[in-house]
């Protein structure tokens, strides 16, 4: 089942993105990549390496 709230937020985000200038889009891309990498590195530090299942 679709979430009307999520759909509305997706539309709102899409509209907001459309209003950005090309320069703002590149800046947003840079910030987005930094955040994704920080999340990924944070997750890698928090999640211990998985052990193989016991036989």
């Amino acid at each position: 089942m679709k979430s009307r709230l999520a759909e509305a937020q997706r539309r709102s985000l899409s509209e907001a993105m459309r209003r950005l200038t090309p320069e703002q889009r590149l800046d947003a891309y840079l910030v987005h990549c930094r955040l994704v990498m920080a999340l990924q590195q944070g997750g890698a530090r928090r999640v211990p390496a998985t052990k193989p299942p016991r036989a």
Partner: protein
Amino acid sequence: MRTRQAGESALLLLDAVDVLARVGIRYAVIGAMAAAVHGVVRALSDPFGNRVDLLFGLRGLHAEAFARAVPIPFQGGELRVASGEDCIAMKLFPDGPQDRLDAQHPRAAAAGSVDSRLLQEIASGYGPETVAAWDRLRAGS
């Protein structure tokens, strides 16, 4: 070097562009950064931290793609980003599911500002499969 941490490939690209400018090599930014300019801001997580791929001699690349590239100020420098039509045609070339999705986003964002005749001409340089993929995208299938 402008980069300070992982996730800053865009800044590494600025450094690379400085070198290209010094030796007089024309370039056009394609891929996720170009997609961010023309439609959708989608982050790339690179397992190597920061990386820039330099592609030379792309088969089918339209001769005027570099002249059409759009100069965009970025972090105190400037990047020449491939035009929307060039980006869509390039994304349609391999015609994978993600590529087609990426091609749809800039087209939707441009909403009527895409030059269909130019795109048709660029797509023809990449071969009949790319033209067919463009026809499918245009038809909305």
